[in-house]
């Protein structure tokens, strides 16, 4: 009686029909992701949760699974995979960073998505990150992207690290890979009238590849004054993209303040209320996609184990019984056999 009370729900949860329902639900979740571009994690979580329950129950009560070692191991690997996926979604991060030469990677410029637990485990900002050296982004005559190569220096030792389109850099678990984004940074110096300390800072203009005509942005001076700066490139596009991306030969910085437009060349300064804004120099920045997921090697190992166990099960099946019933020793032809 007591056993019944315990085993009935377990039998229900372990049923193969429930597996089919969970698979259909998972398919429905995938359809939602494709069709309506909803966030995958909440769309798939109910089905994956149900599959997890179904798997645990099946491993506990299904004789067919427990009597075949490869099948049992395969289902255990699947269960491990589901747990790892849940941990992955809770702790991952996807973001981006942009660096100019001489700048160190210490924190992100933006976060696209992250799991709810990521802030708790994040080592950012880093006390000492790799320092950006030079980089090379090649283009062909038609403007098509070629190879990208970037040089960074190890903090402390100064050892060079080369990364490219298929070689990322791992920094404290964060994967830095070159992105398709490139752009320019104007280095500006703010010299206050009251004699207080000068401020040197960079204005990162938007990605030149996707926004060639949107090279401007609003920001705030150290004295709280709002200002707009834009980059006007006067050289033809091909001249600074082919054969590789570089600082154009002719350009000017445009500063807009209180409806006034002020073009500035390198080294020129603009008098503003409270101080001077000096345009020091123009630099290139390179974009990085930053990804964090500590579960990746474990996910990979578990996937390979699961596939290996499934292969083992297939092998057992192939070698234990001939597929053709005519080759089986106890075969007798049934009337409905074709």
């Amino acid at each position: 009686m007591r056993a019944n009370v315990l085993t009935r729900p377990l039998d229900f949860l372990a049923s193969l029909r429930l597996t089919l329902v969970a698979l259909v639900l998972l398919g429905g979740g995938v359809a939602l992701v494709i069709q309506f571009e909803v966030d995958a994690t909440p769309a798939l979580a109910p089905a994956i949760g149900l599959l997890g329950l179904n798997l645990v129950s099946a491993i506990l009560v299904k004789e067919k699974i427990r009597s075949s070692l490869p099948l049992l191991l395969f289902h255990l690997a699947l269960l491990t995979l589901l747990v790892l996926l849940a941990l992955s979604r809770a702790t991952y991060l996807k973001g981006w960073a942009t660096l100019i030469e001489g700048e160190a990677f210490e924190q992100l410029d933006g976060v696209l998505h992250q799991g709810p637990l990521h802030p708790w485990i994040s080592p950012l900002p880093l006390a000492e990150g790799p320092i950006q050296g030079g980089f090379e982004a090649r283009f062909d005559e038609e403007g098509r992207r070629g190879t990208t190569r970037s040089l960074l220096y190890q903090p402390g030792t100064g050892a060079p690290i080369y990364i490219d389109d298929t070689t990322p850099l791992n920094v404290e678990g964060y994967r830095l890979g070159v992105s398709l984004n490139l752009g320019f940074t104007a280095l500006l110096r703010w010299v206050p009238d009251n004699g207080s300390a000068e401020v040197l800072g960079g204005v990162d203009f938007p990605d030149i590849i996707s926004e060639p005509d949107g090279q401007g942005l609003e920001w705030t001076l150290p004295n709280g004054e709002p200002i707009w700066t834009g980059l006007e490139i006067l050289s033809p596009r091909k001249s600074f993209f082919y054969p590789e991306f570089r600082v154009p030969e002719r350009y000017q910085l445009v500063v807009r303040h209180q409806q006034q437009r002020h073009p500035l060349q390198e080294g020129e300064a603009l008098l503003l209320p409270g101080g001077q804004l000096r345009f020091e120099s123009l630099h290139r920045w390179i974009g990085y996609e930053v990804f964090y997921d500590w579960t990746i090697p474990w996910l990979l190992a578990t996937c390979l184990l699961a596939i290996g166990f499934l292969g083992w099960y297939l092998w057992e099946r192939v070698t234990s019984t001939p597929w053709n019933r005519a080759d089986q020793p106890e075969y007798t032809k049934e009337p409905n056999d074709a």
Partner: protein
Amino acid sequence: MPNETLLLWASLMVYVAGGCTAIIATVFKRRPERTVLALMLLGLLLQTLAIGLRWERLGHGPFNTMFEILSSNIWSLTLFFSIVYWRIRAIRPIAVFVLPVLFMMMGWMMMMPDHDSILPTTYQTVWLYVHIGFGKVFMGALLVSFGLAMVVLLREGAFIKENFARLPDNRSLDELSYRFILLALIFDSLMLVAGAIWAQEAWGRYWAWDPLETWAFASWLLLAFTLHCRVTFRPQPLYSAMLAILVFAISFMTFFGIPFINQVPHKGAV
């Protein structure tokens, strides 16, 4: 350039000759199996030369445009089926269903522009070959399962029983089809894993729900669903055959329909 095209056309002619021989043989209950196998192998040889010349000229394999994808898959599916045809003699008549699928792909390929392509930098990795290789075995296994399912379907429907009389009974074909679907699930899984490794290296994410990834996962789910249906309901060979055909259709659409619609096989591959 003309040599490539000539060799490709010659290979297609030989494939078609092999396919037609198989169809005529089935209709007239003849067994020119060695001729069919020889024609498939000759076609493979000619197409290997055509692909090799193009590879040599462009400096990369047939992985990018729809023309290249179809060409390389005609080659790999023919190779896979030739091996099955050679090793499992009892099921050779399924060529009558398998080869027309390849004919359709050939016709489609000939309608595609065969212009030179440039391989994106992120495609220049060994994982591309691993990923594609697993995918080709996956599709080959499903193609064989489809051929077996078609025989079961037509025999169960009592359409052309006598033409396939010398094939094993439907339950046996159903069991073999099941094993090929299981093999397809293994290689589909390997393909997804290899693709994820490649995507992680190339684009910094192992999964991005791009159309091809998503449909590949949908195919994987359908394979899992099919295998569980068999265990759960123990269906008659007729219904198993219908499921096998559905799995093949969805996977075929994933492999060839999605890149056709999207132009770019994967997100980030520009």
